[in-house]
């Protein structure tokens, strides 16, 4: 592969799993940057020991801010494609290659993973409902015909990454990315990916109650702009 791909992993207090996740990605990919989002545990040292480059936020800013930092770092280090990957181990490394291939061969700006096109292991019904509601919301607000709005596995081309500036520091960034995609009329494609729900990832994941916060943050972001 002559084009440079950077894998961006945003991590906040993932000390118990980050080493394994980084190692598994490093088996295939060379450029990995872990954004330690002001963790209070040993996430940073663990990720570094596993072989990743570690960029540490001096304070906790949120997942959106961490991804933005990772994307900026990747761009400044010559990335052609940037892949965002979750730190909690729910994504599969094999899916990265498929996303990158898809971005290159179809010449699209952004490829997002969809768990609803792919296989999902042990997804609770409640989680499914929340995610489906989010998809509906995204379809209504952006007009994009996506099947999964909140998948952390994405592949973004460098040109698209420069256009998609993430201003939502916390969890509203997933919707924000798609809004920017619609706004800049970027070419988007979905690829099926596998998500494995473990007890660990479920505990770290989004709760239903937080959807209200995300909606509020998105609205406030609009007022502000």
């Amino acid at each position: 592969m002559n084009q440079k791909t950077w894998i961006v992993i945003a991590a906040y207090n993932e000390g118990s799993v980050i080493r394994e996740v980084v190692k598994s990605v490093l088996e295939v990919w060379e450029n990995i940057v872990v954004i330690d989002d002001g963790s209070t545990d040993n996430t940073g040292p663990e990720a570094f020991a596993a072989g990743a480059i570690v960029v540490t936020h001096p304070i906790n800013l949120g997942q959106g801010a961490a991804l933005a930092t990772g994307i900026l770092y990747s761009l400044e280090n010559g990335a052609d494609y940037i892949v965002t990957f979750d730190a909690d181990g729910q994504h599969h490394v094999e899916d990265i290659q498929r996303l990158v291939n898809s971005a290159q061969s179809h010449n699209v700006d952004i490829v997002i993973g969809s768990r609803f096109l792919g296989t999902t292991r042990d997804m609770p019904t409640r989680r499914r409902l929340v995610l489906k509601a989010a998809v509906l919301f995204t379809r209504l607000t952006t007009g994009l015909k996506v099947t999964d709005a909140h998948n952390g596995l994405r592949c973004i081309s460098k040109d698209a990454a420069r256009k998609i500036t993430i201003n939502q520091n916390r969890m509203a960034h997933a919707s924000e990315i798609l809004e920017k995609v619609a706004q800049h009329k970027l070419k988007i494609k979905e690829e099926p990916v596998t998500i494995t729900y473990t007890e660990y990832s479920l505990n770290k994941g989004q709760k239903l109650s937080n959807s209200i916060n995300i909606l509020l943050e998105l609205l406030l972001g609009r007022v502000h702009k």
Partner: protein
Amino acid sequence: MTMQIILTALFLGLTTFSWLRMGKVRVFARLLTILCLVGIYFIWSPTTLTLVANALGIGRGADLLLYIFLIFVLFELLISRIRDKEREEMITKLARRVAIQNAKTHNEPH
């Protein structure tokens, strides 16, 4: 009568405070003094305030104050939310720069 005396004292105190603390920004001190004087006037002549309220289609002077207060608070809330967001963006940019400059890589230049 008691409440009127307390409020008057409060407004006079506020005026004095504004002249002592905002001596350099005369405009604000003057504006605040005028507002306080108007306030004191209405405290002692609530019927005048009611007349003003009636002219605006509001029944009582106290209601007029309530509405003005409500508008002011909501406006201030919105402004401060926007200011918070801007400050957050500034802090984010600063933290991001610091983080990237201190990136830990595996091939440090010797």
